[in-house]
């Protein structure tokens, strides 16, 4: 029997995605051990990578990085298919969807900072919707909206600013 070798051809894009995803997963894992004042309030630093990928490369790259990050992180933490995973996935997908449209905004006026804020609001919006519609249907989630909004604005701003600085450093912006 001849030995069959399966060769997978990797492109440059694949390498990019792999590198970025690795960093994103790493950031996610670090974040998971940090204490948070309230469940759902997270700095979301892995989103920096997603946003960076979007600007530096393209949307498709960002999409892959995001999906890989969510899946891999949850597998590593043993949360695969758990409610936490669902929340993470929903938030990320809605966040990406927002970015898909937001990136079309004129970049003379809109920097990663603004986009990051938009995407983090989309992120918490998606999560709150998931909680309300599926996880805990009767819950009055309104109480959480103010606090989550503050977190979204604050961390969205910080993450966006970091992304902006990174991109500037690479002369990509």
């Amino acid at each position, binding site marked *: 029997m001849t030995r069959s070798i399966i060769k997978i051809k990797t492109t440059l894009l694949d390498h990019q995605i792999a590198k970025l995803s690795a960093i994103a997963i790493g950031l996610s894992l670090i974040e998971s051990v940090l204490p948070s004042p309230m469940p759902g309030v997270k700095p979301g630093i892995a989103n920096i990578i997603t946003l960076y990928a979007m600007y530096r490369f393209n949307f498709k790259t960002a999409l892959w990085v995001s999906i890989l990050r969510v899946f891999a992180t949850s597998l590593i933490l043993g949360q695969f298919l758990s409610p936490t995973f669902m929340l993470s996935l929903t938030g990320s997908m809605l966040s990406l969807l927002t970015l898909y449209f937001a990136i079309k905004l004129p970049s003379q006026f809109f920097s990663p900072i603004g986009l990051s804020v938009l995407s983090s609001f989309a992120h918490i919006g998606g999560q709150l919707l998931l909680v309300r519609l599926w996880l805990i249907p009767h819950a009055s989630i309104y109480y959480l909206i103010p606090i989550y909004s*503050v977190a979204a*604005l*604050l961390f969205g*701003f910080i993450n966006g600013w970091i992304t902006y600085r990174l991109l500037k450093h690479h002369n990509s912006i």
Partner: protein
Amino acid sequence: MRFIKFFFIIVALCFLQSCSKTSLYQSKHYVFGTIVDISIYGESDKKAEEATQAVLHEFTRLHHSLHAWKRSDLTSLNEAIAKNKPYINPSAELTEILKEAKILEDASNHLFNPAIGELIDYWGFHQDEFTPIHPDKSKIKVLVERKPSLDQLSISGSSISSANAHVKIDLGGYAKGYALDQAKKILHERQIKNALINIGGNIIAIGQHGNKPWRVGIQDPRGSQAIAKLDLPDGWAIGTSGDYQRYFINDGIRYCHLIHPFTGFPIQNVYSVTVLIEPAKNAGTLSDVLSKPLFIGKKEDREALAKKLNIHHYLIIEENRISMTQTMADKIQFLDMHSQKKNHLEITH
């Protein structure tokens, strides 16, 4: 950095904003011999307060005019009747009230009868506090056979007289409702669009509580909590006659203040009757009066009587049994699951 400072200032500001005034003006008073609760929504405190004072003033006036046993226009009238003398120059209000009450007495087949003051007095309910008595059947028989009725009154603008000297008028089942109608008039005059007035449990609604209707609770006749709640839309009134407010217990038997004019004895085994009255000029009055014939009348006659009196929505609570019309059932929401379970619920027509 500047942004963060700005951000925190905004947040701080909004915390201050949260301590805003609500636009519900509520006040409680002891007037008209009972607790009066007035809620006014959506007006400035000043306007609400002035309107409340006007209403309370009116209630005090009515209290002094129509009191059943303390010095009043009514007691003067009763004294004249007892002496077989005409009562000269009655107020227009008194004649109107008596004419109205007479119509209602007839319509209720004389179950609602404000002329049986002597009986009520005999049972001791013409006092602020009552002591138990041992009923003397023969004495009661005498009082009953005197058959006092408002039909025996001759009412004109210049005088009121009675063919029967034993007519003693007690407007206890009428005055509170009448006061509600008066209050509604006063508030309308003052352009108050949303208010809820509660006189000793009798309630009339004007407008709404903001963007939802006024909501009232119905008392559990054997408890201190509300047993059910319902919305009271604009102009609707609600009244309850119950055996749990004015009563005494003797030898284990409860004697309440609702007395059957034909037997002379207080009604037993009915805990409470609640009627819901649709908007009308005298909705308040009807909400007070119409619960009485249903409370006093025989169980088998209730449906026919309610029909005759045009009472579409009522609720009757007896021992282990709650009966109500379908329309009433649609409107109320029981607050206490326990009472729903232990009571046989019956919906009549």
